[in-house]
């Protein structure tokens, strides 16, 4: 994860320490100012970056980077020094500087590519590059700080809540902004900027502090996150295109969290998990009012949801029974085989081979929209002057669903059942010797995960308006597993991020859709090599994947210590 530049030797740094601060200041200022200048002659590219004093897209991003740089420089020494006592501004600035150089180079390339040659880059663009380079240089000369323990940093609760709200607002605004970008260059540019910002703030220690804040204000954070998610459709200006993607992301994420119970908590690998989503969807389809629905019974949707989830959970129990005798790789293969059996059965149960339940490869099309308590999900509704289309309607119900699933996940995780799962994952025989009912717990993990996926499936069927066997192939299970692994096993936030990356990027970056799977395969291989615990790993998992990493163990221990005195820790 570290940027590749080597650190300067201490002597060199000490010799030039005085130059560091002004250099970094100048760099940040230049970066900030560059956004106000014209970056290109061509008004038609990248959202018009040709006009001075009217920053757009990439210019705006550069200014944001510059602004953060300025704050960090001033916090290092200057009016914001009180802040600098807590955060490692030197490390942060180094990351920010290097990231900004990457960003500026990217911007220059983007302009050259779009407008046809480097000659089309105006001074503003070059200035940004110069500023970024200066900032990097300056930051390299800055001495590192001795930091205070964040555990003791008690800002006033109001400030803490304000920070949470600000961060959430930034997330909402950022999401709305980036989803509105059609131009892939701007899209990638924004992601790049976000990445640099996050990296710089992480290196400065902001997120460590924020972690403590989040711990103290968990309820506020959860509430804020849901409010942001709830407000999201209102930022879409009546357009349903992004909402369609958003609903898919949520369904995917909800299923992945269910899988996370099985894989992340209980440590059982399931390669056929998509079958549970599929069984929920098929049950809903078969009991819907679609013309080719195969079951005559048409109960209200809430009953259908329960039936679908129960069917999925039953399948989960069946798939779980071999865990009595097999585990590890063999279990993975058993689940894979179950997944294939599910798909082939859906494929075959069409009246030609076996009873007609699923309509075979054609699936069940024309599933009507949901209608709950008189609320028609197919029709647009206008709320607070904003028209919310069909997918927004589904978005809200899915939001409720994923909220429920997250609740189930976290509460189970923090109960005797969750502890039992982790114990099984750690040492199954010891867990059993301590009186943990390992088999029942493993079954519960499978059935519980399947139940949640089944719930998601019933809604998915209506949202998709059709189900067919080719939606539930092995690759989808692999994608789910990848979301869990990529984001971080055993954590909710990680899975949400993993799911978003895996579903959103291919949609937005259509130009690489051809290479989507290739990159996916590569990503899996590289992740396992470089960061097997995922982007946001639960600390526990991180340890498992780095058995020998003593330093990390110490860090985590320190985190756990909090208020424990050194004597007790020995």
């Amino acid at each position, binding site marked *: 994860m570290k940027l590749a530049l080597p650190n300067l030797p201490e002597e060199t740094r000490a010799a030039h320490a005085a130059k560091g601060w002004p250099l970094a200041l100048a760099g940040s200022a230049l970066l900030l100012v560059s956004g106000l200048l014209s970056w290109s002659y*061509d008004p038609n590219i990248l959202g018009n970056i040709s006009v001075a004093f009217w920053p757009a897209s990439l210019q705006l991003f550069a200014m944001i980077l510059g602004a953060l740089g300025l704050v960090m420089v001033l916090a290092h020494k200057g009016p914001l020094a009180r802040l600098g006592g807590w955060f490692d501004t030197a490390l942060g600035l180094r990351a920010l500087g290097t990231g900004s150089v990457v960003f500026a180079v990217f911007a220059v390339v983007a302009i050259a590519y779009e407008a046809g040659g480097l000659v089309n880059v105006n001074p503003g663009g070059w200035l940004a590059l110069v500023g970024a380079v200066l900032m990097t240089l300056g930051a390299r000369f800055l001495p590192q700080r001795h930091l205070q323990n964040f555990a003791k940093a008690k800002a006033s609760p109001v400030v803490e809540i304000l920070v949470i709200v600000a961060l959430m607002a930034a997330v909402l605004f950022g999401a709305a902004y980036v989803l509105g970008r059609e131009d892939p260059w701007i899209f990638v540019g924004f992601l790049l900027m976000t990445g640099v910002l996050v990296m710089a703030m992480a290196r400065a220690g902001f997120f460590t502090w924020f972690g403590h804040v989040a711990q103290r204000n968990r309820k506020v954070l959860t509430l804020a996150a849901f409010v942001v998610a709830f407000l999201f459709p209102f930022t879409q200006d009546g357009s349903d295109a992004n909402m369609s993607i958003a609903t898919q992301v949520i369904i995917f994420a909800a299923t992945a969290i269910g899988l996370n119970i099985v894989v992340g908590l209980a440590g059982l690998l399931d390669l056929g998990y998509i079958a549970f989503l599929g069984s929920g969807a098929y049950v809903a389809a078969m009991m819907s009012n679609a013309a080719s629905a195969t079951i005559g019974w048409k109960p209200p949707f809430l009953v259908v949801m329960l039936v679908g989830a129960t069917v999925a959970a039953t399948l989960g129990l069946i798939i779980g029974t071999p865990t009595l005798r097999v585990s590890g790789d063999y279990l993975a293969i058993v689940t894979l085989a179950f997944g294939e059996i599910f798909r082939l059965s859906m494929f075959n149960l069409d009246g030609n081979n076996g009873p007609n339940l699923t309509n075979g490869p054609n699936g069940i099309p024309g599933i009507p929209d949901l209608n709950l308590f008189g609320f028609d999900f197919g029709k647009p509704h206008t709320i607070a002057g904003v028209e919310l289309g069909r997918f927004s309607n589904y978005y809200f119900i899915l939001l409720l669903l994923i909220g429920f699933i997250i609740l189930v996940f976290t509460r189970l995780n923090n109960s005797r059942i969750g502890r039992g799962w982790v114990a099984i994952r750690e040492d199954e025989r010891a867990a059993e010797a301590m009186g943990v009912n390992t088999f029942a717990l493993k079954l519960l993990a499978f059935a519980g995960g399947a139940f949640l996926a089944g719930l998601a499936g019933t809604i998915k069927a209506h949202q998709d308006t059709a189900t067919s066997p080719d939606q539930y192939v092995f690759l989808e299970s692999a994608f789910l597993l990848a979301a869990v692994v990529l984001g971080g096993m055993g954590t909710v936030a990680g899975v949400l991020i993993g799911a978003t990356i895996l579903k959103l990027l291919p949609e937005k970056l259509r130009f690489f859709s051809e290479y989507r799977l290739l990159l996916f395969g590569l990503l899996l291989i590289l992740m396992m090599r470089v960061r097997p615990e995922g982007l946001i790993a639960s600390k526990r998992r991180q340890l498992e994947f780095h058995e020998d990493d003593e330093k990390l163990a110490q860090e985590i221990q320190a985190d756990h210590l909090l208020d424990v005195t050194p004597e007790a820790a020995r």
Partner: protein
Amino acid sequence: MPKRSVVSVGATLLVASMALSACGSRGETGATTSGGEGATKVAKIGVIAPLSGDLAVLGLGIKNSVDLAIKQANESKAIPGWTLELAAEDDQATPDVGKNAATKLSGDKEVIGVVGTLNSSVALQVQPVLASASIVQVSPANTGVSLTKGEDAASPKRPYATYFRTCTNDAVQGPFAARYLYEAGFTEVATVHDKKAYGQGLVAAFTEEFEKLGGKIVAAETINPDEDKYDAVVSAIKPKAPKAVYYGGEYPNAGPLSQQMKSQGLNVPLMGGDGIFDGKFIELAGATAEGDMSTSVGAPTDSTEAGKGFLEQYTAAGYTDPAAAYGGYSYDAANAIINALKVSLKAAASAEAARAATVTELGKVSFDGVTGKVAFDEFGDTTTKVLTVYKVVGAEWKAEKSDTFE
């Protein structure tokens, strides 16, 4: 890690841009006209087709043909006061992706009609999205019967009033093949299909007509399209000694099936629908494909004057990809929409406002297109039912017989 890769990608791009800059020149703009003619309003015709992946050849042919029709309409100022634009979306031949594409198009207030899709399965998901926005959809290639007649074959009911198609459907193609085979003396036939809507529907229609004529279906088998080996099916059919095999499905399976039939000693011709009418079929079936047959909708595009004229214009317009199997139908589909727009846009304030009127007008369209007469019946199906039988002769498809069905 992501960062490092960005660095390396960035470096590569930098080098590439240096190379570009050598031939780049200041002020060279990649964008098209913005403003300019001033007073005209814009209406967009969308395309949803596979522009990447296995079926991209067919999809690009559709897109280019629609583009050609739009360009010609703009040149001749077919709709005074309006400029037409193309909005093409890739569906990757996948229902989910197609649905997203449709959602995107229906969110664009300037889109008034869509040509597409290629696959019936994608159409099933695209139909409801476009219908809810009253955007007219004309498919040049869907042959699934249920798209226009609903799921229940006994009492046909049109599911979406916004959906039309310029090609005939399987309910016509199957019986057409049945008559041809029966008349050619193949009175005992085995059927095989891939269980998909297209193949199953085709075989069902074929079987009904064939038995009505007095022919005998000696075996009815299915295959799994994901599989490559059909020895189980061939072993099952062979003892029944059919005189021909009728296959419902597409060429990726039909080619190997034909080859494996013959290498296992079942030396009878294989016949299929337009799904196997492709050069790739002959390539896959190998030397033993000689004598295999297929039906396809319409007369061969290069067999009529109008069709030849279209192909000439297409080539002249400089498209690098061929018009492919559905070019003519796509061109006609686009022109059908344009004809409807001539009326519906006349007094309209915006494209969005004219959407509903366009649906009504499209139902009334009638003109001579490059594939024959273009007009729609009460279900949105084309009224023209010309079909052609092709046969593999000398490793090429040769038109055998063109006829109007009923």
